[in-house]
Every structure is written in structure tokens, then in C-alpha cells.
């Protein structure tokens, strides 16, 4: 059976499963059945996609179904790009299903999740495969719809309804933007097939407009600042394994859409476009992680860090566009591969971290970091894998996050070759921004891990927490292992990605497997190289050496005592450093600019026994400066127009009369 058919079969299976889930959603077995089935299906799809990607991808597999737009039919196409993103999607899907096997049992209203989970997976797969504008948009919006239903799964909790609403509106905003983009690409004749669009030569005007629309459409789904507002609301609202999918996978589908249209369909938009993308990417990365730093809700923090990573990916895509526009094939391939690599990595560790957050949620029922703490004692396994995730996402060697960021920096270092001065000067600045983002990410995850898992428990729930079920653990451990593998064997991944770069850019990075010791060499060894494996080995060796010598020669005496703390041992766990206080230095540095942050200390008068309080005031400037005014404007104008509902019949008649007279006048003057 040809690969594309296999994929479609899996998707059909998922859709069928969704229907089945509606039928037996009330029964006990439903959870196990549905997640088991999704696990199996996405595993099959995953293997299929991987085999396709490693095989010969030069001849894409096409499939046309007699549905969708009648005179066009629904086109589906499996090429290298689609293949890669199928891997991402189905890997996430499989992991989430495995996790769901355990996590889903704690869900109090499974019938609100089960039908939509497979539908969501199917939607994402379909988007990646779709090969004509109509089916693309259909699947895209179907995906949004399914995920919206999942966000609304816990609709009774405060704020979730609002989250779902904002999400749905932003999603449809994005869809409409895409719709316009495709309308432009398809032209008045309306040939919506991607093949036809690819064939036509687009004017610069079209290209610019399409780029803007794509940034609005795909950007709003991926969470580009300032279109990101829905993301930190919606992702945490969903059940954790769904949050993992939305953050780890759905944003990637959006990025796929961007790549597909800008790189594949549109051709080359020219270097100014790349400058725009670079700028947006950099801003998004920095802002995202700053937001995350300020956050005290675990899942919201993760959502914000997703925004940061999306920013990084877009930056790297922007670099690829810049190089491609100047015909620097090799550098373009480097940047593009870096972007894809980061897509893969982020899907790994972000899913892992959301699973972790979900585990914490099930164990303690808490998402607020400042009510957690000391979990490393109660849930050792979970905290171990989450630690791995944190190290990986903080871009620290020898894990995968570092490799992709390292590649991106290598790409940044190529920028002096660019002829345009604007880019010459811009790219290093953006690079610095990325470095800042990376460092802040490290800070942010030190905070998250340190506050939630280390220290002493800050609430009863945190004290009485217990380890989670084995399905969840299995899912998390698999992802953690993947993080390490991708970190120490990056060469293999890069080679696996090369067909995609070949297809999109017509160039690829040099083959990496032949390098000695499996190290990776983007351009030339004299320029730069990195070997995750050896770094790993060295660290283990030297660490074990150290340990050996220490335990050989040093004393083994060990005494447990109260914490020293300069002699001042804190009376209560509440006196520990909390998330807010940990973020304080950085808030002092960036906060005033980015959030108009203010700390108010309320000192009680002498003799007053009230405790002194520190109130932190943060403003989401984007929300307050952009969205609230829009909402206000709509509200105001609807209020004004609403008067028309309360007129007397006579006034209505006068309206009719006025219309008539105007039309007649127009006629009298015009003709």
C-alpha cells in the first residue's frame, strides 16, 4: 500500500474512532479503548512517515478524493516536507495517547474529551497532507474546532469559557487571513490546487500581500507576538495531554503552513520579507520568555515558553529566507535545517514538560507553582524526567535543545556574507536577542523546576502528593530518551532532514554521518563543529573520575542536619523563595520596560499586627494596548447602532423613505 494511502487510512481510522467515541463515550472502557486505538493508529502512521522520509522522497505520493470542492476534489500529497511534519504530529500524537491512557482515567467528564481527541489528531494530519487550498483550510479550521472543543472540555472552571472564546475568535481570524491569502494565490479564475498555484508566477505585490496575510494567519495560530494572546489562555485550559499536543504539535502545524505557502507555493518573496520575519521572530522569542518568567501558573509558563520557541523557529526561517534570497544555498539549508530540527526538538521537550505539569496536576491538583514545592521527594521519577526536559529546553548540552540553537547560531554567524546592510546589521542584534532568550529560558526553567519540585512543600497537597501511573511515566521517559538521543546523535537527524531542505530550497547541508565520531560540521570543520556524543562521554568520564577519586580519598562521613542558612533557618516553608521573588531581579531589569511592572510594599503602621504585604503589579501591554481598544471600539459602535432597535415604526418608515429617495436621487444624478 503506497505511503500516502497508509496515512489516509490511519486518518480515516481516527475519524471513525471519533464517531465511535461519541457512541460509547459514557461507558467505562471508553478511555482505554479510544486512547489505545489512537496510540496504535498514530504509531502506524509514525512508522509509515519515518519509512517514507528515510526512503526515496523525490516522487511524492498523490491522492485525489472526490470530496471537498466539487470541480476540484480533495487533493492530498505526501512529500518530504509533509513527511517530516507527519513524523512530528504522529510522534506527539502517540506520546499523548500513551500518556492519556493513564491521565484520562482522572478525567471527570471523559465524554467531552474522547470524541474530539482523535478528531484533533486527524485534523492535524490532514492539514499536513492537504494539497489544495480548500481542503487545506477545511482541515485547518477543523483542527481548530476540535481543539476548541477540547479546550472547552473543562468548561465549568472559571476562565475556560473566556479562553475558548478568545481562542475561537483568533483562530477564525487566522483562517480568514489564510483564506484571503489563498484567494490571492488562486487568482480570479479560482484554481485552488496547490500544483496550479505553484506553477503560476506571482507578482511582487501578490507576494508581499500573501506574506503579510500568512504572518497574520499562520502567525496567529503559531503564537507570534502580538497575535499570541489566545495561546497562554487556551493551552493550559485543555487537559494536559491535549495541551501538550496544542503546544508541541499544533503550533508546528501552523509553522508547516507558513513554510508550505511562503517557501513552497509562493517561491521567493525577497530579502525585505526575510527582515520582517526575522524581526518578528526575535521579538516573539524575547517577549515570550519574559512573559514566561513572570508567570506563576505552571502550564501558562509552558505555554509562554512555547511562544518563545516559535519565535526562535521563525527567526531561523527568516534567516533561511534571507540566505535563499541572496542565493547562498548552503547557509540557507543550514538555517532551514536548524529550524526543522528545533521544530522536532520543541515537540519533544514541550510535550514532555506538559506531561510533567499534567502529572503534577493529577498528583496535587495544583497548577500554581507557589503552592507546590519539594515534589522531588514525593515524585522522584516524574521530577527526574521533568529535569531532563528543563535542561533540554534551556538549550544546554548535551541535550537536543542546544544542538538546534547551536545550528541557528552557526547560521547567524554566516550573516556577514549577506550583501544587504540592513540584514548585516540586523542579524547580529537578533542573534544577541536569541542568546538573551536562551539565557532567560534557562533562568525561567530554573525557576519553574526549583520552585515546583525543589525546596519544601508549600501546601498540604504538595506534601501528600504521590507518583503518577506508569503509562504517564512511560510516555515521559520515552520523550526524555528522545531528547537525549537527538542531543548526542544530531548528525543522523540532520541527514534525515536533508530531503526536506532539498525539496524546499534545492540544497542541503553536507552529509554528517561520515564525519569522524559522529560530530556535526555545518560548513567546515575549521569553522565550527560540535560533537554531542563526545561531550556527553567526556562529561560522564570526568564526572565519574571525580566521583571515583572523591570516594577513594575523601571522607565518607555524612551528617543530616537542619539547613544552615547563615544560622537563620526559616520558620515556615512560606518564607522560601517563591516564583515571584525568584523572578524579581529580572523583573527589575526588564519588567519596567516590558510590563510597566511595579512592586508595592504595604507596610503596616507601627504597632499594627498586620503582616507587611508585597503586591506586584504587571501589565500585559499588548493586551491592554491592542485588544482591549478593539473590543471597546466594537462594543461602543454596537451600542450606538443598537439604538436602531428601539425606533418607532414611523422612524423605520422614514428610514425606508430615506433609502428610496437616496436611490432615486442617485439614479437621477448618475444616469
Amino acid at each position, binding site marked *: 500500500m503506497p505511503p500516502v494511502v497508509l496515512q489516509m487510512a490511519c486518518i480515516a481510522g481516527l475519524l471513525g474512532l471519533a464517531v465511535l467515541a461519541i457512541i460509547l463515550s459514557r461507558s467505562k472502557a471508553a478511555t482505554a479503548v479510544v486512547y489505545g486505538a489512537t496510540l496504535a493508529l498514530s504509531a502506524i502512521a509514525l512508522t509509515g512517515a519515518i519509512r517514507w522520509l528515510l526512503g526515496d522522497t523525490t516522487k511524492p505520493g498523490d491522492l485525489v478524493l472526490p470530496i471537498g470542492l466539487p470541480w476540484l476534489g480533495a487533493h492530498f500529497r505526501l512529500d518530504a516536507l509533509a513527511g517530516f511534519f507527519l513524523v512530528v504530529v504522529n510522534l506527539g500524537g502517540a506520546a499523548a495517547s500513551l500518556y492519556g491512557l493513564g491521565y484520562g482515567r482522572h478525567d471527570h467528564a471523559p465524554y467531552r474529551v474522547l470524541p474530539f481527541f482523535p478528531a484533533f489528531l486527524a485534523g492535524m494530519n490532514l492539514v499536513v497532507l492537504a494539497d489544495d487550498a480548500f481542503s487545506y483550510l477545511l482541515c485547518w479550521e477543523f483542527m481548530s474546532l476540535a481543539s476548541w472543543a477540547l479546550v472547552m472540555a473543562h468548561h465549568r472552571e472559571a476562565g475556560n469559557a473566556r479562553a475558548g472564546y478568545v481562542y475561537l475568535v483568533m483562530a477564525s481570524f487566522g483562517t480568514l487571513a489564510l483564506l484571503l491569502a489563498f484567494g490571492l494565490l488562486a487568482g480570479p479564475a479560482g484554481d485552488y490546487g496547490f500544483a496550479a498555484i505553484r506553477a503560476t508566477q506571482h507578482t511582487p505585490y501578490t507576494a508581499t500581500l500573501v506574506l503579510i496575510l500568512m504572518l497574520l494567519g499562520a502567525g496567529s495560530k503559531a503564537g507570534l507576538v502580538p497575535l499570541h494572546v489566545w495561546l497562554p489562555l487556551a493551552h493550559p485550559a485543555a487537559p494536559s495531554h491535549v495541551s501538550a499536543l496544542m503546544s508541541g504539535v499544533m503550533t508546528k502545524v501552523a509553522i508547516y503552513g507558513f513554510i508550505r505557502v511562503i517557501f513552497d507555493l509562493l517561491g521567493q518573496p525577497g530579502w525585505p520579507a526575510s527582515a520582517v520575519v526575522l524581526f518578528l521572530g526575535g521579538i516573539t522569542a524575547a517577549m515570550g520568555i519574559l512573559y514566561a518568567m513572570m508567570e506563576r501558573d505552571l502550564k501558562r509558563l509552558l505555554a509562554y515558553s512555547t511562544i518563545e520557541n516559535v519565535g526562535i523557529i521563525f527567526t531561523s526561517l527568516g534567516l533561511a529566507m534571507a540566505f535563499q534570497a541572496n542565493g547562498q544555498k548552503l547557509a540557507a539549508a543550514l538555517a532551514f535545517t536548524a529550524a526543522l530540527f528545533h521544530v522536532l526538538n520543541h515537540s519533544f521537550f514541550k510535550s514532555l514538560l506538559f506531561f510533567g505539569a499534567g502529572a503534577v496536576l493529577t498528583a496535587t491538583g495544583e497548577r500554581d507553582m507557589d503552592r507546590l514545592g519539594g515534589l522531588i521527594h514525593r515524585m522522584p521519577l516524574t521530577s527526574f524526567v521533568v529535569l531532563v526536559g528543563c535542561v533540554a529546553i534551556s538549550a544546554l548540552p548535551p541535550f537536543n535543545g542546544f544542538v538546534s540553537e547551536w545550528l541557528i547560531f552557526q547560521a547567524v554567524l554566516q550573516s556577514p556574507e549577506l550583501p544587504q546592510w540592513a540584514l548585516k546589521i540586523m542579524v547580529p542584534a537578533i542573534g*544577541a536577542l536569541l542568546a538573551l532568550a536562551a539565557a532567560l529560558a534557562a533562568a525561567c526553567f530554573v525557576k519553574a523546576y526549583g520552585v515546583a519540585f525543589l525546596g519544601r512543600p508549600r501546601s498540604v497537597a504538595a506534601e501528600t502528593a504521590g507518583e503518577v501511573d506508569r503509562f504517564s511515566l512511560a510516555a515521559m521517559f520515552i520523550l526524555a530518551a528522545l531528547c537525549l538521543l537527538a542531543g548526542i546523535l544530531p548528525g543522523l537527524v540532520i541527514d534525515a532532514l536533508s530531503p526536506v531542505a532539498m525539496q524546499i530550497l534545492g540544497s542541503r547541508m553536507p552529509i554528517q554521518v561520515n564525519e569522524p565520531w559522529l560530530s556535526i560540521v555545518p560548513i567546515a570543520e575549521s569553522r565550527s563543529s560540535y560533537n554531542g556524543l563526545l561531550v556527553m562521554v567526556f562529561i560522564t568520564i570526568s564526572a565519574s573520575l571525580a566521583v571515583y577519586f572523591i570516594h577513594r580519598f575523601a571522607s565518607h562521613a555524612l551528617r543530616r542536619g537542619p539547613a544552615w542558612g547563615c544560622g537563620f533557618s526559616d520558620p515556615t516553608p512560606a518564607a522560601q523563595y517563591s516564583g515571584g521573588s525568584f523572578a524579581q531581579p529580572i523583573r527589575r531589569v526588564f519588567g519596567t520596560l516590558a510590563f510597566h511592572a511595579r512592586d508595592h510594599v504595604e507596610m503596616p503602621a507601627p504597632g499594627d499586627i498586620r503582616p507587611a504585604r508585597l503586591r506586584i503589579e504587571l501589565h500585559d501591554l499588548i493586551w491592554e494596548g491592542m485588544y482591549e481598544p478593539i473590543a471597546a471600539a466594537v462594543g461602543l459602535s454596537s451600542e450606538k447602532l443598537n439604538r436602531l432597535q428601539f425606533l418607532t415604526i414611523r422612524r423605520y418608515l422614514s428610514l425606508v423613505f430615506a433609502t428610496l429617495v437616496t436611490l432615486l436621487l442617485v439614479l437621477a444624478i448618475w444616469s
Partner: protein
Amino acid sequence: MLLVLLLAPLLTGFVRKVKARLLRRQGASIFQPYRDLLRLLRKEVVLAENASWLFRVTPYVTFAAIWVAAALVPTFATGLLFNWTADLIAIVALLGSARFFLALAGMDVGTSFGGIGSSREVMIAALAEPAMLLIVFCMALVAGSTQLSTVANFMASSYVGLRVSLGMAVIALIMVALAENARIPVDNPATHLELTMVHEAMVLEYSGRHLAMIEFGAFLKLLLYVSLIACVFLPWKIAVFGTGALSYAVGAAAYIVKLAAAGFFLALFETATAKMRVFRVPQFLGAALMLGLLGTLLLFVSRSF
């Protein structure tokens, strides 16, 4: 690798000695750090009740990471056997992971001092890294590589000449180095006055062999930065790979001299300046960042002519 192990405490000791002398004190012998380490190794470990396994693993991880990083910096000869394993960015990142774990350890016991230390440490790091990257960028622009041996070779080769931007870069690098190594004016390694300490507050809970590991790590880090500056910006007499034993000897000698000089200047600087408030650090590092950026831009200009 062993060489750096041996040299690191010596450097620190030397710095301390010079400082003492500058303050008209006798000062401990320059071998004192070795003694300290041995003493710490012999002492028992006092562990807070709720210290987790992470707390106990961290010292080794940190030490290992720094050690590897230090070993990857060419000291007196380029073309180390393994230095294609990681370029400068990777080395910085290795230091980063060391810091990451230390900061976590600081949070682990759950005292407020650990918190202070970690939070300030990560703040400083967050500011130091962009500056570092720009310096790297500047260097890479000159040498066309981030591979340290290559850079060193290139710099050693005569025709580099003196460049404004390189000057800026080296100043910036020194500033970063000061911040990273918790030296005055960013931090004071000697103090135990709670409100001013950053690095020390973070490792407050450590004792015995663990503390030894961490101290040792700190020594290594200092050495690392010094030799980094040495090999990149003053690579005179550095032995190019494959030349004869003599040049190696010369290189070694030169290296020692460089270390001494650097140590002396460091000490001088530390005694001359006072520690600044924590929230003046951003300006300090911001200056470094600006210098790096300026250097890069100037480089463009100078290249274009």
C-alpha cells in the same frame, strides 16, 4: 586536562596573594587553595534534611562540565586532540549547564539565601550571555571561525594587526569574565555578608567534599576565562599544532607568564574598585553588550573599506 587541574588553584592562590600584598598584608601562601581543598575533602558533609539527590549530584556535574569546558580551551598549544568536539559557543553553553545545576541546587534546600543566590546568578547570566555571543560573533567575523584553535592560529598569525573592534571585544570579554567568575565589582567571592553575595549565597548549604568540588569548579572557571582571553587576544608564542617540542616549551612558558600577568591585573583591579550594587550590574553588563555590538558593527565598517 590534568594541566588545567593543577594550574587552576594556583592561579586563584596567586590572585589572593597579590591582593593581600596590595593591601599590605602578609597573605596566605599561593598554595593555600590546595590546602583548602584537601581540608574540605577530609571534612564530613553536613546535609540539610530535605536536600534531595539533585543536591548531592550537582557538585560532580558542575565540576565535570567546567572541567570539560576548560579542557577544550587551548592553553599554550593549539590543535588539541579533541577541540573539534565543541567550539566556543558550546563551551559557553557547558558553563551554562554548570550554572543551571548550581542554581537548582541553590533552590533545593529551600532557604531564602539559596533563592537570592540563584535568582541573582541567573539574572547576571541572562545579561552576560548575549554579550558573550556578540564577542564570539566579533571574533568569528575576524577569524572566520568559532573553533578556538583556528581562532588562536589566526590571531597568532602576524597579519591580524591591531583593531579597534578587537579592543572593544576584549574589554567586553573581560567584563563578562568578571561577571561570570563572581569577581568584584559584580560579586565578592570573599564576602559572607548575605545581602551582597550572589555566588556564595547559592552554595551556602554546601560543605565538605561537595564544597570542595564546587570551589574547584570555580578555580577552573577562572583559569578557563583567563586562558580564553590569553589564547584569543594575546596568542603570542602560542605553539601551533605539530611544531617541535621547543615551541611547546616556549608556549608553555609564555602561558605561565600570561596567567601571572592576568592574575596580577585582576588582583589590582579588584583592590582598586569596590563592589557595585546588584542592580547596577545590568548597566555594567549592558555596557559589555554595547561594546560587543559596537565592535561587530565597526568590524563591518572596517571590512567594507
